[in-house]
C-alpha cells in the first residue's frame, strides 16, 4: 500500500516511516511542508496520506487545508490527519465532501501501533477513523434538533462508534450485543437520518457527517 507522509518534525517523521514500513506500507514520499505535500499528493496519488495538521510555512493548519484541497482535486483521496489537539470544526471540514476515506486522530494514538495501523488501512479502504475524543464530546451533546434528536441513546452510542470507524463486529463486542442487533440499530439510524439505501460505506460516512453537523 502506497503512502505519502507529511510531518515537519524529523524525529516523528522518521518514527512514522519506520512504523509504517514495519507493517508493509510503502512510504513513497515523506515531506515536511504544505506546498510539497500538495505536489506529492497530486503526482503520486497514494492509496492513503498521513498528514500533520500544522506544517511550515506558517505553522497554522496548512496540513488540513492541503488535505482538503488535494481531495478537491483527487476526489476521495484517503487522508488520515494527525494533530496534537482535535477540533470538531476540523472533523466536519474534512468530512464535508461526503466522499469518505477520512481519518482524524490525536497524535497520541500512534502509540497504540496496532490500532493506528488498522485506522490507516480503514481510511485507505474508504472508511472513517474519528478520534474518540471528538466522538466523546459529541456524545455529551444533548440535541433537540431533528433528526438526531430522534435517535435513542443506544443508537447515538452506535453512531459514535461508527464515527470512530469501528466495524459492526467491533461495535457488537464493545456494547456486549450481537452483531445482528448492531445491524438493526444501524438500519434504524439510517432510517431516522433519512439516508437512502446505497453503498453501505457511503451511508456510514453520511451518518457520521450528520452527527458532526448536529
Amino acid at each position, binding site marked *: 500500500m502506497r503512502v505519502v507522509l507529511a510531518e515537519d518534525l524529523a524525529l516523528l517523521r522518521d518514527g512514522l516511516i519506520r512504523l509504517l514500513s514495519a507493517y508493509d506500507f510503502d512510504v513513497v514520499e515523506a515531506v515536511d511542508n504544505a506546498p510539497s505535500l500538495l505536489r506529492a499528493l497530486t503526482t503520486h496519488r497514494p492509496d492513503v496520506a498521513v498528514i500533520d*495538521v*500544522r506544517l511550515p510555512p506558517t*505553522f*497554522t*493548519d496548512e496540513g488540513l487545508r492541503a488535505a482538503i484541497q488535494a481531495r478537491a482535486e483527487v476526489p476521495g483521496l484517503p487522508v488520515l490527519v494527525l*494533530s*496534537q*489537539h482535535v*477540533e*470538531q*470544526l476540523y472533523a*466536519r471540514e474534512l468530512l464535508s465532501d461526503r466522499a469518505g476515506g477520512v481519518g482524524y486522530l*490525536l*497524535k*497520541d494514538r500512534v*502509540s*497504540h501501533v496496532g490500532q493506528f495501523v488498522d485506522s490507516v488501512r480503514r481510511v485507505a479502504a474508504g472508511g472513517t477513523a474519528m478520534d474518540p475524543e471528538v466522538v466523546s*464530546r459529541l456524545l*455529551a*451533546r*444533548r*440535541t*433537540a*434538533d431533528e433528526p438526531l434528536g430522534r435517535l435513542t441513546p443506544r443508537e447515538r452510542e452506535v453512531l459514535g462508534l461508527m464515527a470512530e470507524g469501528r466495524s459492526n463486529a467491533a461495535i457488537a463486542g464493545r456494547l456486549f450485543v450481537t452483531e445482528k442487533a448492531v445491524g438493526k440499530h444501524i438500519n434504524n439510524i439510517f432510517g431516522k437520518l433519512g439516508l437512502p439505501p446505497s453503498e453501505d460505506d457511503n451511508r456510514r460516512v453520511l451518518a457520521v457527517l450528520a452527527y458532526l453537523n448536529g
Partner: protein
Amino acid sequence: MAEFGDDLRSGVRHGAVATVRGLALPVLALALGLPLFLAWVLSSVLVVAGIGLVLLPLTIVATRNLATLHRRFATEWSGVAIAVPYRPAPAYSRFGPRRAWQRVRWMLRDPATWRDLLWLLAEVPVGLVLGLFPGAAIATGIEGIVVPQLLWTLGVLPNGFGFGTIWPIRTHTDVWLAVGEGVLLVLVGLLVAPWMLRVHALFARLLLAPTRKAELVLRVSHLTRTRTETVDAQAAELRRIERDLHDGAQARLVALSMSIGLAEDLITRDPEGARALLVEARRSSGEALSELRDLVAGIHPPVLAERGLDGAVRALAMALPIPVETDVDLPGRPQAPVESALYFAAAEALTNVAKHSGASAARVRLEYTGTHLRLAVQDTGRGGASLDAGTGLRGVARRLSALDGTLALSSPPDGPTVVLMEIPCVLSSPKTSRSSETA
C-alpha cells in the same frame, strides 16, 4: 397637513415635558442647593470647633450626590454626557478618627470638590432663572388668555387693568389682543423650554465635568490598577503553569523513563514483565500528552493560532452540548492580546451557558464596530446570573479592563442572559471573513 398636526402635537408635548422638568431645577436649587451651600459655610466655620469635621464630609457627599443627579439629568434630558470626576478613594486606615480624617482630606484635596462648591453657588440663581422661565412664561400666557376674557364677560374689569403691552384694556378688541399675546407667550414658553434645559446642562458640564487634568488623574489611576491586576494575574498564571508541569507532565516523564529503564533490564530475563512495564510506559506517555494538551489549550489554544478568533469562537460553540448559533463579522484580525482575551471571555461565557443557565440554545455574535471588537453571548436560560456569583465573569471583566475593554451583563430572572464584551482595537490585514451558522 396631518404631518404638520403631528409635528405640532409632538412639539407641544416635548415643550410641556421640558417645562415640567425645568420646574424641578428651582425646586432642587431652593430645597437642596441653598441649604447645602449654607451647610458648607457653617461646617467650614465649625471645623475649628470640631463639629465641622463630622458635618463637612456629610455636606461634601450630599453635594456630590446632588451634582451627580444633575449630571444624570444633563445626559437623560439633553443628551449632554458628563463624566463623574471624583478621584477614587484611597485605602483607609482602620482606626476610626484617623479614618475620618483621611476621608475628609481625600475629599478636600480633590479639585472636583471645589468645582462642585462653585457649581453649587452658581446653580441656585442659574437653576432658578433657567428652570422657572418657561413655566413662568406659560403661566403668564394662560393668565392673558383667561383672565381679561373672564373679567370682561363678568363685567367686573377694573379700570386701569391690563395685560402685556395692552395697558389698560378698554375695548373688547383689547381683550382679544391680550388673548393673542397670551397664546404667543405660551408658545414661546413651550418652544424655549428644551433649550433652557440644554443651556442648563451645558452650564453644568462647565463645572461638573472632569477637567483635562482630572481626566488624566482618573486615567492614571485606572491604568495603575489594571496594571497591578495584570501583573498579579500573569505571575499567578506562570506559577500555575510551573506547578502543572512539575506535578504533571514532568513527573509522568520521569515515571516513563523509569519504566523503560526497568524494561531494558528485564527484557532478556523476564520478557513478560518487560512487556507489562512497556504497557505502563505507554499509558504514562499518553497521560503526559493529555496533560500537556490541556495546559497548552489554557495558555494559547491551538485553534486560535490556526484559525484566528473567528474559527476559534466557532470551535468553542461546536464543543458546547447545546446548539449554538454563531454569527461572525470580522473584516480582519485583531492584535493577539485582544484575540486571546476575547477568546477566553467567550469560553467563560459559553461554559457558564452550558453549566448554569439551563438553556436549550445560545447565540454568539462577534463583530467589529469600526472602533471596538464586540462579542455578545446570549442564551435562552433561566437568567439571574451575576458577576458576583462566582461565574468567573468578574475575572473576565478584569482581564478585559487591562485592554480598556468592558463587560456588561444583563440577566433578569427567567432570562434571557446576555453577556456583552467590548475591546477597543484596530484590525490588521483586512480580509473579509463573514460566517454565520448553527453549531
